[in-house]
């Protein structure tokens, strides 16, 4: 006797859900069935939300944060922010935790990663040129390096500090690194607000 399973459409949905982070086969099956049974238009609204987020949202061409449309993100378009200071982070998701501390009112710049030669990620793969352009074009006089405190984060900070010091600006540029005390080996995402607040407060010059 043939073993009966779900129809092909459900199997397909489950196999998509299984690819989501943190979703195992059992959860994928449960979610798929739940979606099919959800009341009203939920499943259609949900798929529409995914589609429009995917179609509309891109990375801000200035700072690398998420933006809808071509005119930059809410950070870059905020006239009340301090334009003299840029906080450099590894990932766009690192900006909001720093923002929540309330200790920083400048602009951000996401590198889109960190130097990691063993993973074939070198300086050319990071958004370093666009950072240099922003420094040259604007009135920036302080760069805060808020990359992680793991080995790659440290190497990235060290490379960037050296790289930025070589820019011929005709004005002083302070380069600081947020204080240690970030979770060892972890990115900014896992740091709590107080730790981040202290880290920003205790930044030291490189």
């Amino acid at each position, binding site marked *: 006797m043939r073993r009966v399973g779900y129809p092909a459409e459900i199997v397909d949905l489950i196999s998509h859900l299984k690819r989501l982070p943190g979703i195992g086969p059992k959860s994928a099956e449960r979610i798929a069935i739940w979606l099919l049974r959800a009341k009203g238009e939920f499943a259609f609204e949900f798929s529409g939300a995914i589609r429009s987020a995917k179609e509309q949202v891109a990375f801000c061409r200035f700072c690398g944060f998420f933006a809808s449309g071509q005119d930059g993100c809410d950070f870059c378009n905020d006239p009340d922010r301090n334009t003299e200071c840029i906080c450099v982070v590894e990932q766009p998701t690192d900006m909001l935790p720093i923002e929540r501390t309330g200790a920083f009112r400048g602009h951000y710049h996401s590198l889109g990663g960190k130097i990691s030669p*063993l993973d074939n990620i070198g300086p050319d793969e990071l958004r370093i040129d666009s950072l240099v352009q922003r420094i040259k074009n604007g009135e920036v006089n302080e760069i805060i390096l808020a990359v992680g405190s*793991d080995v790659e984060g440290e*190497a*990235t900070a*060290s490379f960037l500090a050296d790289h930025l010091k070589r820019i011929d600006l005709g004005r002083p540029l302070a380069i600081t690194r947020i204080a240690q005390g970030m979770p*060892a080996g972890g990115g900014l995402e896992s740091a709590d607000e107080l730790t981040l607040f202290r880290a920003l407060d205790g930044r030291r010059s490189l």
Partner: protein
Amino acid sequence: MRVSALRLHQFRCFGSLSCELGEGVNLFTGDNAQGKTSLVESICVLLRLQSPRTSSSSDLAQFGADAFGIRAILDGERELSHSWQAGKRRLALDGSPCRKSGDYLEASGLVVWMGNEDIQLVRGAGDSRRRYLDFAASQLYPDYRPALLAYEKALRSRNFLLKRDASPNWRQIDAYSGVLIRHGEIVIRRRSELVSQLQPWAAEAHTHVGGSRETLAISYVSGSGSSFTQSLAESQPEELRRRVTVVGPHRDDLQLLIDGRSAGQYASEGQQRTVALSLKLAQARLLQERRQTMPIILVDDIFGELDPGRRNALLSYLPAAAQKMITTTHLNWLDSNGGALSSAARFHVHAGEVVRIS
């Protein structure tokens, strides 16, 4: 410290095992390849997250399995659990997941491992001696293991960069030099501190176990001169030639001298075994003194290799109050040592099964 209620799941030759360990000496007898060593190894893997026999967790899973689990109670109150599945390690303390291995190790027990392969500490290359220092230092200094892991990672990246390009990109390499130095200096400082603290204990143990007037002297030999920063800068021409980082703690060594002569080169096999034992006994004494708690002593099959004099000296020098797990193939030496081991819990290990016999 005491481990009890050891449970193994798909670990080496053990499909499923439950073993109630005694508080004092636990003797495991049985033929070779029946699981004695694996049993004692599991305690080391549970407590220190590393095996003296392999650096790959997949070796620890039972043949054909892609997972293993070890659990035990420490000091009658804390449950430690270490499991591994498909490349992922899971640690738990009292049933709650422990994400940071540093926190787990801090809460775990102290271990001294003594095995037949210890003779490599004297005969073998520097990496055996560095592993010995690392194992001891990780249990003494909370900052040691994170620094060592970061150092090793930075070293791998730096060596990769040195090899990668026809003309090395020094700006990228130097980004790693600073990281290497920062973590390397912690490793250097701790190793040097460790060796000077081990020295008196090693000399004393050597006199006791060796039973001769020869003096053992151990000293730290830095692989980076007196200043790591300076040595690294000066080694650049050689790095360019050899495309590898040539100075640093990965080139450290531990010098072992008997009456001023190299133990590795000039000592007899018996003398070398005594030196190796002395290093391990010194580790036990230092852990006990510095951490104010008794390490758990794991002794794998070394008694058969020792003459009765050294055997008795060793048995009497091991900290009496420490919990000990001792494996042995031959029983003939046992009964002549009735005194020290008469109260031992005895187990027979056969084909992955463990039976208590007294």
